[in-house]
């Protein structure tokens, strides 16, 4: 296990290196300048400021300087937030994103499993049909539309939850719901298909023949076996949540990192783009690693023992 982990961590670092290299050069191809006051500056003034930031050097030199900084744990300072270290910008805003992202993921997957399982057990009945309709609805409604609807009805009209802002559990409810919709739908669809398959397989028939009660069959045999393929979609779902949170954070005025990412790209804030790319890639790599480990826990056949 330790050896496996070590290998995986090495690959994660390699992935991060490749991702950051590609991002760096792509980012430098973006038109525009990182200056927040570009409209009012003359080309000579722009050049002078570039010199101060080291942006007048060739791109490969800038890349080496950047790599050197990263090795020393220095992500540079943001252009948008003057003098603010990128590492601080990220750490101070990452918390809320992780909270709503994590909650959205857990809620979405758990609810999705239940909806999917119920749909499969009561396959081809009205329960199944409603479960399918819910899935299709949640897949087709983009999270930002759902967010606006939730905000208007549950926030403004019914006053059940705060409209926006940040400050405690209540503030996380609406964004979590908005983010949970898509993973819920995806998981439910997957779970239903898998479980219908499993329920019609021979060993379930055998269990029935042995006279096991229905709850026992579902709980001990069907559920666990249906889970295996579902785990594989957790990685893509995590990506879904990350991108969804960029918009959802904006709508609910959450001081998170997703919105910063978009803004840093729009403003050519190079150090922030790089810092956040690395953070996002690292998060995704970790989710994938966890998924693989969990995979082994559920399915003994692919348990890692070397």
């Amino acid at each position, binding site marked *: 296990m330790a050896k496996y982990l070590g290998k995986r961590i090495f690959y994660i670092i390699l992935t991060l290196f490749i991702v950051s290299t590609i991002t760096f050069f792509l980012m430098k191809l973006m038109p525009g*300048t990182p200056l927040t*006051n570009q409209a009012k500056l003359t080309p000579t003034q722009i050049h*002078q400021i570039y010199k101060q930031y080291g942006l007048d050097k060739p791109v490969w030199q800038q890349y080496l300087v950047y790599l050197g900084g990263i090795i020393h744990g220095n992500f540079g300072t943001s252009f948008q937030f*003057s003098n603010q270290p990128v590492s601080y910008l990220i750490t101070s805003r990452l918390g809320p994103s992780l909270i709503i992202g994590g909650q959205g993921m857990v809620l979405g997957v758990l*609810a999705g499993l239940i909806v999917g399982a119920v749909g499969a057990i009561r396959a081809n009945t009205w329960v199944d049909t409603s479960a399918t309709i819910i899935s299709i609805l949640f897949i087709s409604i983009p999270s930002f539309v759902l967010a606006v609807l939730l905000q208007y009805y549950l926030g403004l009209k019914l006053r*059940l939850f705060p409209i*926006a802002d940040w400050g405690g559990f209540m503030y996380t409810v609406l964004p979590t719901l908005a983010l949970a919709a898509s993973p819920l739908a995806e998981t439910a669809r997957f779970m239903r298909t898998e479980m219908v398959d499993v329920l019609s397989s021979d060993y379930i028939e055998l269990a029935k023949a042995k006279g096991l009660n229905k709850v026992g069959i579902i709980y001990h045999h069907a559920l666990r076996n249906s889970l295996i393929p579902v785990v594989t979609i957790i990685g893509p779902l995590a990506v879904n949540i990350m991108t969804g949170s960029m918009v959802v954070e904006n*709508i609910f005025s959450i*001081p998170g990192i997703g919105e910063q990412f978009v803004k840093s790209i729009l403003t050519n804030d190079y150090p922030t783009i790089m810092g956040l790319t690395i953070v996002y890639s690292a998060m995704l790599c970790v989710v994938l690693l966890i998924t693989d480990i969990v995979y082994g826990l559920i399915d003994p056949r692919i348990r890692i023992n070397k």
Partner: protein
Amino acid sequence: MKINSLAKLGGVALVTGLILAGCGSKSSQSKKQEISWMTPSPIATMDTSKMTDLYSAQVANGTNEGLLRIAKDNKVNPGVAKSYSVSKDGLTWTFNLRHSKWSNGDPVTAKDFVFSWQRTVNPKTASQYAYIFANVKNADKISSGKMAVSKLGVKAEGNYKFVVSLSKPQSYFKYMVTQPEFFPQNPKTVAKYGSSFATNATKNSYNGPFILKGWNGTNDTWTLTKNKNYWDAKSVKVKDVKFQAVKTPSTALNSYNSGKLDFTTLSGTLAANNKKNKDYTVYPQASTSYMEFNTKKIPALRNTNIRKAMALAIDKKQMVNKVMQGGDITPKGFVPADMAKRSGKDFANEAYVKAGTDYNLKEAKALFAKGMKQVGKKSLSLTLLGADDDDTKRATEFVQSQLTKLPGLKVTNQNIPFKSKLTRAQNQQFDLVLSAWIADYPDPSNFLDLMTSDNPQNDGKWSNKQYDALMKKSETTDANNESARWSDMVQAEKLLMNQQGLVPLYQQGQAALIKPSVKGVQPFPTSPQYDWAKAYVK
């Protein structure tokens, strides 16, 4: 399997949450001296040497104060300076400072101004606004690294007399010193925090009506709290102005309607939908959106008749009322209305040329045909460049639809990210471009200077010798003669409009909702846009 128990737990949490929500909502309506203010953007920095954005400048104008303080109707009030005098040649400005204090108890002295101004023009600071000091003696040479910082034309005579030497007379210098770049900085505070100076609320000292609280450097909420050490603290009535950065306009409106915000800005359709709301108001901005012609690249655009025809073909009234829908106003010219005033007269009215902003399709067609004949062309195909935000997209689409009504003119639109658009415009890589300019200080020159032949911001390279001569005169021979200078600029604007060097499309206006109980917030057409020093809740 833990799924079932977890699901139960989730259900319980949800139900508990719903119950708690019911308990949490309270509707207390007390007359606390507290205002909740919406802003579209978080604070980028509180270092006045590094500040470039309007929203940071607004906060800085609340927490700090320069020599003078910008006031209503183009006036300036005393700030840290009790009084000031200008030498006859207009080159030396002497400010007599009052005895006032920083929020940490240190005295505010002339040395703090010297320190701050030198710090901003110092190339090491890499300030993006250093150019605004251009008229202070030696500033340009210093910011380009050719001269020592100590040579800047500022000096402290004792602790309470601050003397500025200008390289050429600048009658509007009084407005400049109200802006954040010209605020003092406490040298002790800057030295104490070094590169982290002003990166959060506590690493700073303040000398304005308020002090900043609750800003951690990157968050979306903060508070301006009354500063007890402010020299005029007795006239500051409001205790707290609580800021909330809300980036989604519909969220801001919902929060306003729920009573969580006392003020919110509105844009586009949200503004249009709320025009009947009794809290609705529009603050005119010293900002004009306009179309530039690339006279360098497209020879046909050097023809005045063609330019005039294109200007006349665009119905600005329809554009403002039906297309932009926000708080925008039909333009009177290039220099915005309600910005620059002299003895009660608005510059925009004085320099108004009807043809410059009028709409007359019939005349436009005639002029266009005439112009095309003069340049010997049958058809003209142009690309209209604009940024890719919603407002600009709508604007470019509308302008395109209007211009194609001229027989023989074909217009294609190109909407690209704002910063790319700027770069292209600055490098003359366009035929027609939609631009916008917002004034740094309320003087017509702030706009008119843009169109002189050698100005780097004159993207279309429109050039007129008479115009250049008038602008030069206003800065040299007439610089110290206020009325002559004013009339030079009036003539220049009239010339610009008669020659249609550009097409003003609309003057920007900020639509907003503000609770009737909030009184005394002073709006300005230029930065800092709002002042809360005299605000109160009734």
